[in-house]
């Protein structure tokens, strides 16, 4: 056992806020144990020292928004035995996928003093649109407990336990009172992938959909319920177009709720 080579872990960043990588550094209590089991060979957020590949497990944060990204991700795939995307950007294109519904040149002309310096693609796309992905971990940001579960599962060759059911089940398991039923608060929980532990409803807020679409969902029916509760059509569209705007069930459904301002 002792002679077994530690598996090599690499962390990569594309278009993202770094929050998901930070979840790895957030594993303060478990980080030393993790470093004993895996060789953290490339993790620029933590250290400039890198060890060249190949890597047993690559964690990829961020979406593909430039031609250079599109090249680099192929290289990452080439040097990685397993490639796991972490977070909404890498899995669904992130908040920056809002450009997919508009003209990115118009955005650039408003945001940057010299838009000519900006070389960017017209779309923000998930990693799986470019290379085969072994597993996608949801969340904006990801949950550190789930991240450890996924890393542990991959280094031990087992299936990670990250259920794809709705957030509602997490609310019920922890005994949280349904904010839609008991308070009339619009909540995305019934269509949102579990994983966060149902944080917002435990503070009497509706779910924001940070973990993207659940495995099984009926956006049309929830949308109707929101409209009946007095939520304007455009607001239904806007909640579907947030961190997981590029996830197909959300992007398709959002079209049904477009209004004049969209």
């Amino acid at each position: 056992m002792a002679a077994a080579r530690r598996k090599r872990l690499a962390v990569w960043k594309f278009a993202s806020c770094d929050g998901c990588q930070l979840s790895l550094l957030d594993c303060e209590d478990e980080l030393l144990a993790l470093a004993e089991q895996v060789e953290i060979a490339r993790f620029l957020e933590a250290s400039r020292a890198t060890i060249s590949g190949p890597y047993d497990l690559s964690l990829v944060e961020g979406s593909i928004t430039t031609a250079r990204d599109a090249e680099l991700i192929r290289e990452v795939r080439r040097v990685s035995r397993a490639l796991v995307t972490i977070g909404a950007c890498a899995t669904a294109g992130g908040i920056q996928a809002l450009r997919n519904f508009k003209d990115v040149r118009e955005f650039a002309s408003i945001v940057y003093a010299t838009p000519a310096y900006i070389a960017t693609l017209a779309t923000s796309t998930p990693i799986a649109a470019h290379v085969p992905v072994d597993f996608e971990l949801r969340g904006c940001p990801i949950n550190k407990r789930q991240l450890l579960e996924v890393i542990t599962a991959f280094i031990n060759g087992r299936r990670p336990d990250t259920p794809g059911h709705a957030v509602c089940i997490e609310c019920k398991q922890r005994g949280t009172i349904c904010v839609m039923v008991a308070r009339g608060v619009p909540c995305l929980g019934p269509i949102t992938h579990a994983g966060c532990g149902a944080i917002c409803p435990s503070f009497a807020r509706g779910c924001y959909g940070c973990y993207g679409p659940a495995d099984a969902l009926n956006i049309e029916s929830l949308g109707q319920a929101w409209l009946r509760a007095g939520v304007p059509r455009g607001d239904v569209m806007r909640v579907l177009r947030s961190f997981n705007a590029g996830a197909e069930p959300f992007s398709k459904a959002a079209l049904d709720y477009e209004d004049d301002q969209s």
Partner: protein
Amino acid sequence: MLPGETAIVAAAALSDLLHEISRLGYTLVGPTVRDGAIVYREIHSAEDLPAGWTDVQQPGSYRLARRADSALFGFAVGPHSWKQFLHQPAVTLWHAQLADQGAVTFAAEPPERKRLALIGVRSCELYAIATQDKVLIGATYSDPHYAARRAGLFVVAVNCTVAGGTCFCVSMKTGPKVETGYDLALTELIDDARHELFIEAGSERGAEVLERVPRRPADGRAREAAEKAVRATAEMMGRQLETEGLRELLYANLENSRWDEVATRCLACANCTMVCPTCFCTTIEDHTDLGARRAERVQRWDSCFTTDFSHLNAGSVRSSIKSRYRQWLTHKLASWIDQFGTSGCVGCGRCITWCPVGIDLTEEAAAIRRTDLRSQTGREA
């Protein structure tokens, strides 16, 4: 006092009664107001009960409301059921340890020996517990964690003096009057002149507890007042479900187009199964630590509404929401009878109230009855 005997206890003396129960080593769990609902959680005295509160329930809607009086049990059932405590959301079943020499040792997680006193159990809930008993404490297979918690119970039942907007225990013949399975059964009698509890001892333990609190003998008038209050509740049912021939009706209507219609509304969110006091399904998940030295198996609530639930090696057996809703309803109201000898539904109405889009199983069953495929094809019903 003996089982079957009755007494009148002043509402103000309920704390004494609860104190006597906790003195026997029980942890008290009962209704209390929290986060806009009446939930079940650990309580310490009658002070924690929802005095003066009631609830207004409709499909997909629950609101707390103030009563004109200070009744302690003047509400219907809320979002929690006793399942939370008996068939817990997550239970570690066993763990395994890898020794340096390569030997693996397994150890079952011992059941928690916690003795709970459930305060304010309604008749439908006693039926729900009896229903889960049939599933989880079988002759051949028994869930040791459930069985241990179940064995340690002290039950203070309450006869319902109000019915909720989604209640239909009368249809299911599960209430509102408590019949069996309790240590003490209370009926709250409240009007301008009095606030008292008519209490019936259902066991020796119950009788012993009752003996230790200030009380007076219950006369025939008190019993009549208690029975009248429960009869009035039976007249107030918010819903009804026609159970005559229901099993055969559902079996004959697996292709009824109503399933397609309800599937357009069903969110497949699983809330109905989570709040149902009889739904018992679980999944098991195995976890390892980073170094693969220690593993554990955890049992968690699961639901027939998730796609993982029926996932076999080629995918989910019930991939459409239609097939999952049909599975749930036909199991609850029909095939449960074949499996366990009773309906899986106790008429508590939780699945109706706590469905975020207000799907009402009594209405779905009625709709199927209205469009019974047997009458449409001209065959005998």
